[in-house]
């Protein structure tokens, strides 16, 4: 028996493909949630109300200090205890999104705080409403520079999707592992899964750079 057998590579491909579709879907939906929710978290943190501000900060801190796996368990299993059944998909991707929203909110916050204070003063002097100041003055300046930071979490989330296997979502790595268990051959399937994560990370970082470049030009920040 050779160490690396191409036969198993071809055999494993359909499994991996099915898993990869789930993995990519979970990442895209999860990250969309993280982007929107993260921004909301960040805006709440800018509140002038000390209590709201601190509560948000503590919540973000808590989410960031506890494992994603345990958070997924919490949401998926605690609901049924009280008669609320949440589908694995919703629980898994929802928690993925919330977990990374906490990280993204810190990135947004850094971007918002980096905008020159004079921009707020100028907006007040021009009598712009608060909402409009956020939308057309502050955020267009705050977000383009932080795209690389957000992009890192996009890639990070992708690499965290295997955790979904714990609540029986058959993403790519679980498919690879199942294939390995069925055939008593782990090396090809798991190595290929690892390879795919690496390739995706590299491609994603190129895309993130392109988006960053485009946004910065679009808003003339470079």
């Amino acid at each position, binding site marked *: 028996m050779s*160490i690396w057998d191409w036969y198993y590579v071809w055999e494993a491909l359909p499994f991996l493909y099915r898993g990869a579709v789930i993995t990519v879907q979970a990442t895209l939906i999860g990250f969309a949630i993280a982007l929107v929710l993260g921004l909301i978290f960040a805006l709440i943190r800018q509140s002038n109300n000390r209590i709201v501000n601190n509560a948000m900060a503590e919540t973000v*801190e*808590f989410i*960031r*200090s*506890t*494992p*994603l*796996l*345990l*958070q997924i*368990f*919490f949401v998926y*299993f*605690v609901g*049924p*205890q*009280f008669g609320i059944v949440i589908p694995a998909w919703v629980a898994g991707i929802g928690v993925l999104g919330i977990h990374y929203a906490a990280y993204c909110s810190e990135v947004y916050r850094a971007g918002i705080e980096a905008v020159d204070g004079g921009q707020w003063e100028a907006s007040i002097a021009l009598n712009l409403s608060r909402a409009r100041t956020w939308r057309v003055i502050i955020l267009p300046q705050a977000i383009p520079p932080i795209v690389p930071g957000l992009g890192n979490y996009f890639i990070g989330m992708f*690499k*965290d*999707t*295997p*955790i979904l*296997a*714990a609540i029986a979502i058959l993403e790519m*790595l679980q498919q*690879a*592992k199942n294939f*390995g268990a069925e055939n008593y051959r*782990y*090396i090809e399937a*798991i*190595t290929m*899964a*690892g*390879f795919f*994560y*690496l390739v995706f*990370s*590299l491609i994603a970082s190129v895309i993130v750079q392109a988006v960053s470049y485009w946004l910065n030009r679009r808003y003339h920040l470079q």
Partner: protein
Amino acid sequence: MSEFALGFSVAALTKGVLITILITLGASLVAIVFGLVVGLLRVSPRRPVRWFGVAYIEFFRGTSMLVQLYWWFFVLPIFGITMSPWTVAIVGVGMNVSGYGAELVRAAIQGVERGQYEASIALNFPRLTMMRRIILPQAIRAMLPAWGNLLIELLKGTSLIFFITITELTTAAKLAADATGNYLLFFAIALFGYYFIARLMITPLVRWLERRLGRAYSREALA
């Protein structure tokens, strides 16, 4: 909830916490040592050495931690290397995090002001002495806060050991919850367990180190 189940669960959780702390300590040691060494290789003046550093960092950061754990656990035995789950946990989690750590080390070393390198050349330091006495002490101080965050990521990463059969905190909570049916209680306890390890052990330790190493940089501390 029966008393037996409760007693069993409390014992399991306590053991889970201890195992999580032990693996976190062991993996941190691996991550710090490998991160420091590879970070230094990454800034070596020799190109092949530097490339090795790049490959190491990209490999461990680019492939998922769980993939790496499976690799250690399921694939390596094919080559006749069988490691105990404990070894896999400590080495697997530690090596994965060391990729991120090496990148922190690289960034901190390259972030030391150019003038420090120039003064070292002007004073004729050999490269190793310059690194050891001048550059690293400054770089280490600069990278400490980032290491604090990274070690919390490491702590969270140890929960993935769930998948390779060690009953650490997450697994213990799951077992206790399954046994008693009280998911809210045990998962909440476990969540706070992690939170306290992160905020009452890791963060204060790193802050203390920051203060110690940062003494020379603060007028107030010197006064």
